[in-house]
């Protein structure tokens, strides 16, 4: 599905990712974790070609991303970015319909009936049918995040990339979003790569975790293998206690104060 080989990329002269390589299989739910500045967002940008790579390459469904036209790529990969730069004065439905653009013809001017149906379907799927006519600006942070995900789903992608979809949300909305992603992954066979800061949440939902450290792939594997106290202490430079969830035996990461509070 997604194949990354020896990827080197960065901003201008500053190299952020150094020789990163891994593969993601169809239908997988993969989490990307790592400290601030370790290159998580950069990795997502490189996967979708927003940041050109200096070395190595990314291929999706066996085709290099630079061999595809932008539209073709946008039909396969949808991205939910972190804190989008302000929102346009549109209603929720208008906003979600923007996700249909990659499927439009060059000179297409209006939505087709099928586009409207798809938008309706993803709104039902994400449980926001009731918000249809509301303006994006009027929505709460949690509702907005779901609307952003719905717009990405309207692209009908094969691969969904998300950058910290649970940031700034309360615990209820965090679970709501992650459950939604898990459901989409299981029932729609959608491949998901998600950047997460909350290690416990990452361990709870992801099939596999990719731990980035200073732009390199530090560890990749099952949550139980990646989220060990030694690995986290080494990469995040802070002491933690790792426990297990009562159900399912997933790792729970508890912070430990450095000052002995």
């Amino acid at each position, binding site marked *: 599905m997604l194949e990354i080989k020896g990827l080197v990329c960065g901003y201008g002269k500053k190299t952020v990712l150094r020789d990163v390589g891994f593969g993601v299989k169809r239908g997988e739910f993969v989490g990307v974790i790592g400290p601030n500045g370790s290159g998580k967002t950069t990795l997502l940008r490189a996967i979708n070609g927003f940041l050109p790579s200096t070395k190595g390459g990314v291929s999706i469904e066996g085709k290099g991303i630079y061999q595809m036209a*932008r539209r073709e790529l946008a039909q396969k990969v949808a991205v939910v970015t972190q804190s989008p*730069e302000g929102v346009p004065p549109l209603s929720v439905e208008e906003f979600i319909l923007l996700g249909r*653009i990659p499927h439009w013809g060059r000179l297409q001017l209006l939505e087709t009936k099928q586009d409207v149906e798809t938008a309706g379907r993803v709104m039902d799927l994400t449980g926001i049918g009731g918000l249809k006519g509301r303006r994006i600006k009027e929505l709460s942070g949690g509702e907005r995040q779901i609307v952003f995900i719905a717009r990405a789903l309207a692209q009908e992608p094969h691969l969904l990339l998300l950058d910290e979809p649970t940031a700034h949300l309360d615990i209820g909305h965090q679970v709501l979003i992650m459950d939604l992603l898990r459901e989409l992954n299981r029932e729609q066979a959608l491949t998901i790569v998600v950047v997460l800061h909350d290690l416990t949440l990452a361990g709870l939902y992801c099939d596999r975790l990719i731990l980035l450290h200073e732009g390199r792939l530090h560890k990749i594997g099952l949550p139980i293998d990646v989220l060990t106290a030694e690995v986290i202490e080494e990469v995040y430079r802070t002491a933690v206690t790792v426990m297990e969830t009562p159900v399912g035996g997933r790792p729970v990461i508890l912070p430990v104060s450095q000052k002995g509070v």
Partner: protein
Amino acid sequence: MGLDRRSFWLWWIFLLVVLLVAVSLFSLGVGAVHIPIKKVLQALTTGRGTSEYAILFAVRLPRILLGLAVGGGLAIAGVILQGMFRNPLVEPYTLGISGGAALGVTLSMVVGGSTGLGLFSLPVSGFLGAGGIMAVVYMLSARGGMIKLSLLLLIGVMISFITSSLIMLLMALTKVQDLHGIIFWIMGSLQEPNITLIKVILFISLGGLVAGVFFGVDLNALSLGEEEAFHLGVEVERLKKILFLLASFITGCCVSVTGIIGFVGLVIPHLMRLVVGGDHRILMITSYLAGAMFLILCDTLARVVLAPVELPVGVITGLVGGGLFIYVLNRRGASL
């Protein structure tokens, strides 16, 4: 969007077209010689040869057509630029295009420029000035084939300052009788004797509208931000270049014929956004119609308020546009 939204669009287009026609007929009727609406219609259809016919076709109709072309053109240039920069304070003149045109005209007047170009002299020098400044702004803000919008905006604003300083310098050095011409040109007027020129501008402006509506889809994507638009499959870098050139070209053409008519490109997109929402496809069409109507109305006021003295239309658009906008803002609350 279901049917309800599409009929909402059609309803607004219909309403604005009706209003535009009404305003045009009204404008045809008033002036030094008052012609009642009934006679206007009569003269337009069957009155060939009468004195009314001559006034309407030789004097008033060309002005209305020019008002339509320039008012609509400036309004869609405003929609394009505000959409591209995602900044409601940007207008067609922000990027220095008007300054360039004014500089070109001033230069040609000061140097005594009617160098065999005849009636085209001022428009041509205005257009050359606008085009030259466009090229300078573009080259200064394109780095390695990429345009950084924040840089483009800053450079545009700075170039505007430089050109206005240069204009003042030229004015300080010029003769008094030329000064009057320069000032009047800068204040803007729809008086244009050359019918061919009016036809050309009308053609460009309508072409701009068609192109603008098609780019409305891309502008909608761009309204989410450059990165988001990229993820939606839009070729963002190419799009920015095309939009910059399109808006600049329309503005340059308008300015070089009529002089600097302010406020249409700033206020009309705002007002229409309050009415029809943020979808650039409908915003483009309604802004064109409203801009045309607004300018024709302002020009009519400019002709009749202190008749026989004709006021500069730029003064009226500023007064009416600014006042109207503040009024609407206060009524709607600060819900931009």
